[in-house]
């Protein structure tokens, strides 16, 4: 819900300890909406075996 998103937005800023000037709030809120839409994909389940990669493990690329 839009109201919830705005509350989440304000809460995230408060927790992070940063402020957004009033005249940029709408643009930053819109950016927040766009980011949330992008990362919906990250809420999809992944298999337990899919561990994080702090850096790519690249030592053994296969050859054809």
């Amino acid at each position, binding site marked *: 819900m839009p109201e919830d998103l705005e509350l989440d937005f304000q809460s995230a800023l408060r927790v992070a300890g940063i402020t957004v000037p009033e005249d940029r709030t709408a643009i930053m809120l819109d950016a927040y909406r766009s980011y949330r839409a992008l*990362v919906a994909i990250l809420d999809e389940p992944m298999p337990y075996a899919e561990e*994080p990669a*702090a850096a790519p*493990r690249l030592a053994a690329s296969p050859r054809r």
Partner: protein
Amino acid sequence: MTPPPVPSLAEASTAIAAGTLSPVALCEQALARIAAIDPALDVFITLTADRARAAAAQAEAEIKAGRRRGPLHGIPYALKDIYDVAGLPTTAHSRVLVGRNAPVEDSDAAARLEAAGMVLLGKVATHEFARGGVRDDDLPFPRAKNPWNPAHFAGGSSSGSGAGVASGMMALAMGSDTGGSIRLPAAFSGCVGLKPTYGRLSRRGVVPLSFGMDHTGPLTRTVEDCALALQVLAGHDPADPGSADVPVGDYLTHLRDGVRGLRLGYARAYGIEGGIDAEMQAATDAAVEVLRGLGAEVVEVALPPLRRFEAAAWTIIHAESFAIHQQDLRTRPEAYGRTTRERIMLGAFVTGPHYVQAQRLRHALTREVDALFGEVDAILSAPAHGAAPLAAESDDGPWRRAQPITAAFNVTGHPALCLPAGIAANGLPLSLQIAGRAFAEAEVLRIGHAFEQATEWHTRRPPEAYA
């Protein structure tokens, strides 16, 4: 009369070895060209002319005494102003660091290039902290201009590196690439840019943007120059936690071996999904045909969906850059340019679980792209949506209307090269991207060199009226 562009690394190296070019004369040519054209292009933040003259004189004396260090000895270069050099300020193009950052040690890249006998001309413009935009007017230095048309975006964030090389001020400039910041300036300014494999080049002494996504690498005039530079720059650095302890390749011996017998994948659908324009599509299609004509087998391949790369890339970049800048954003946000400040602030919205999920997704994507390299030797794609847009129309919002499509290979860490591949109707360069297996930079450069030598795009120069 404007002094001519400096020669390529290979040309200068051959001439210096033959005794027909003096490092002192080459340095003076570079400095004279910078003096003549930099007022229009704003490439340099810190010009180290006296230091360069002293280094060139020393190189000349050593070479005359029979102590030539290698092929790059006595040739000028520049560093993006996020690389440390002992005794010189590193500003990252930001008021945040101006007057606060006086390194006492060289970055790994600067140390390697100095040991090779290269001559530092100075530090060049970047987008602020390698993250800002081109329209910020509240920065301590002007933005670098595109030498093909100063009204157009030079690409970023290694904007000064691309503009400096393309305009013939120097034959080598170092850049950094977190989502495309070496390859896009190369593409928009019409030169060659290599993002090596993650870990191939050290990031020590380079101002970080995102620890897991930052890559350092060279921008040069030609692919051969890129190979010459990489031969000096590559190596394991225990002081960089991301550095890979993998043997350095030989990037020159097989550079001219051609592409016959190679099987290349063309990620055509990826470019379409990314929204590239008709000119970029045509240029990439034509480049593929050139490589096919040179004897490569070319098949279409399907990269994973762009949206998955973007979710992983921007979650990691936002979170890591915010972690680096949070304290300054809390206490003195006004020290940042507006675009930089807002883009980095997006990291405040990344949750812990999303950061972990992005790293898990990155692992999966790396594995999926790595699997493609079991079928093909390299992946060809468009590096940008089109030619460089007008700077005044560049996206300076916190959330870009279109994210760089180059970021896929920052996520996976595979090496990717951009090189000239056409000229758009507005007279600005178009480019091709060639990605390869992990640590297979030699193969990527070999393919790039074959394409370059079969076409004349690399011989095109910005109009001297602008340069």
